[in-house]
């Protein structure tokens, strides 16, 4: 990789489309820069001060003023429309995306695969597969940035954000933290390793670690969640099996999707949104549980099947 690159690698499905827009913007910028530079140089030479020739007073021209306000306006409308539609299109996560959880903290990225494999400052992904990242920060704001994929997302404390990408070629790419986060901000870097699916499977299988769902199951007892949420008891709290991804009705009206943010909120601030028919009895686990543990619990809850289905 050492050398003198002038353009970043193109390694994701969206990279080309972003580059195309970038080339358009560059073309517009170059055109207008050259136009202005050329006019300045031409006028400066042609109308340089010469004895015997005075300046000719030109007051202005309404037509020109309208033209050079309207033309840039129209061009920016194109930029806006193109940029926004591409942005919206790029933020739509494909259905078949593989879930990977990321926790940022000063100053490292902790990454967790659904199979249980964990890694730090490295992200291994298979080529040609859409990857959906769910990210949280343990402390300050970070930003997950992979230049070769043209993706970047600030990672916030107290909230989940998502991003996705699909790598188009194998190789190693830079992973940066792009939001200043303190002393070792520039050390919060790593690499994204894109592998052939077979190699990726091999890599995944190479280590036998507990899967997040298994860790979550253990935490489920350790944090005494099981005392109330055990399968079979339905007096005090809702059944968790099979709820993931469904809409639930809330006490006091309203509905919400039973997804990662809602599960997280229910652990940290259980009584903010209580499912209809239940009382706000659950204690808050704020401060007692780490972001990674919450992600494990979510993985476990996702793995639960509805009662009686087993």
């Amino acid at each position, binding site marked *: *990789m050492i050398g003198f690159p002038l353009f970043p690698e193109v390694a994701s499905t969206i990279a080309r489309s972003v580059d195309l827009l970038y080339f358009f913007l560059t073309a517009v910028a170059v055109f207008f820069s050259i136009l202005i530079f050329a006019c300045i140089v031409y006028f400066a030479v042609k109308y340089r001060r010469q004895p015997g020739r005075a300046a000719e007073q*030109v007051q202005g021209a309404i037509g020109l*003023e309208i033209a050079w306000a309207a033309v840039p306006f129209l061009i920016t409308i194109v930029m*806006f429309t193109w940029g926004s539609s591409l942005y919206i299109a790029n933020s739509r996560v494909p259905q078949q995306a593989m879930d990977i959880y990321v926790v940022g903290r000063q100053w490292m990225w902790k990454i967790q695969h659904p199979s249980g494999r964990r890694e730090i400052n490295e992200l291994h992904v298979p080529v040609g597969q859409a990857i959906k990242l769910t990210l949280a920060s343990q402390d300050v704001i970070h930003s997950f940035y992979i230049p070769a994929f043209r993706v970047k997302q600030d990672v916030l404390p107290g909230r989940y954000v998502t991003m996705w990408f699909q790598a188009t070629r194998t190789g190693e790419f830079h992973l940066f933290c792009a939001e200043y986060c*303190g002393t070792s901000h*520039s050390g919060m870097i790593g690499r994204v390793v894109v592998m052939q699916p077979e190699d990726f499977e091999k890599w995944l299988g190479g280590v036998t670690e507990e899967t997040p769902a298994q860790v979550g199951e253990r935490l489920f007892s350790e944090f005494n969640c099981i005392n109330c949420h055990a399968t079979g008891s339905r007096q005090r709290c809702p059944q968790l099996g099979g709820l993931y991804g469904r809409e639930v009705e809330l006490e006091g009206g309203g509905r919400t999707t039973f997804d990662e943010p809602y599960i997280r909120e229910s652990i940290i601030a259980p009584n903010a949104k209580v499912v209809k028919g239940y009382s706000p009895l659950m204690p808050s686990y704020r401060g007692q549980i780490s972001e990674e543990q919450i992600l494990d619990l979510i993985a476990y809850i996702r793995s639960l099947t509805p009662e009686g289905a087993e």
Partner: protein
Amino acid sequence: MSSETIRLYREHYLNCSYGVRSWLLTKDHKRIALLFLISITLFFFLGGAFAVLIRLELLTPQGDLVESETYNKLFTMHGIIMIFFFLIPSIPTVLGNFLLPMMIGARDLAFPRLNLLSWYIFSLGGLFTLGAVISGGVDTGWTFYTPYSSTYANTHVIATAVGIFITGFSSILTGLNFIVTTHKMRAPGLTWFRLPLFVWSNYATALIMVLGTPVIAITLLLVGIERGFHVGIFDPKLGGDPLLFQHLFWFYSHPAVYIMILPGMGVISELVTCFSRKRIFGYEFVAFASLAIAVLGFLVWGHHMFVSGQSPYAGMIFSFLSFLVAIPSAVKVFNWTATLYKGSISFDAPMLYALGFIGLFTVGGLTGLFLATLAVDVHVTDTYFVVAHFHYIMVGGMVMAYLGGIHFWWPKISGKLYPETWARFAALVVFVGFNLTFFPQFILGYLGMPRRYHAYPPEFQVLNVMSTAGASILAVGYLLPMAYLVWSMRYGKAATDNPWDATGLEWQTPSPPPTENFADTPVVTWEAYDYGAKEDKEKEPQVA
């Protein structure tokens, strides 16, 4: 010449009284302008010293010159000092203070005591910030993003925030003074559409200062409270929203960019007309473009937050509004260029700066479009692309305009001429050095080099070395004017009242002007930049 000898004994604002007291208690806007000139020059070179250290550190990818902690403090202090203590006050408090009353035919600003107070407040805020620097510095970045600044940083956040908070009042007082002065103190006959465009642009700047600055004040106050008492206002652990800070911060800090550039645009309008001997092309459009920028500038702050977790709908609204603010800037550039058409152009040093400004501002403005475009901004935000873009606006634009203005009005301010050859040479050095420093950073940015990095991957080194080389040239370019302007105060040739043969009312006063500016209040019957009439008059045979 006999007029020369008379000049020697004439009383003016510099020699009407002597001693430290006469300066520290002055209510004369011209003396206060010089007090500001001295203060912000000190801050400029301090901020510049930090910049030099940053560039030296980035010469090698390993980050081996200073520790990362030190590096973080360097770029933070560079940003804070350059933005709050140099760029924002620079043209308004120095050239604006000096020229605004003279340009509108007034004896002083509307509130001279507030004007002096503004300098004291500025100095107090500056001392606070310097105190924070000396006692160890601050490392949050000039943006003070929470919760890093409110909870995690171990440096002198509160002292620095207090310094900026105090300085904000200086900005408010200056803005208030300019608005009232422009409305109420114009000479008879000087209607709004006869005003020099420098006055329009300073008026627009003053509006932003007055309406934006209080918001940064309360924002920093809340950060201080959060940091001191941990009540949760910006702390997600206690239910706060860090993005609320970003909204409040950028509500001021984006318009603050226009505080920096608008007065520069005003200077350019004066310079381009004078050295082309022409009335400005499309006066009304340039004038209203200033006001449009001041208003639209308040509607675009969310483009700093496209990847921050802000709602994508808000992102689209802000993206659209950001494109709108590009239009008045484009209109200005086209009008300046058109002003050259059929002019009689001379290339004195101020004009070189002005032409440099137009070119660099064009590049800076056009690259701003990349950052307003949502899909591209996702990739380039928080990279060196942004760094390059805003330096093109602020250093390529604003500092060029400031230097051009200082040169142009130096004869009026000091009563002395600067050495023209040296000045042209310095202008070229600045232009070359600037481009070499910051153009490579656009490429670095699209390559993906994040900003605020103390160490970086080795493949970025070549471009970084170019940038550092440019910075050394740029440093020389800034030191040169400092040297010869100081030299000229003592050894320069005495300036005539109107060495550029310019039209503004300020040139109708003697150089340097007397304390009261005008012996009699002038009555204005002509348009601004009436160079045509001036040339015609000169063509008429002089009647003895």
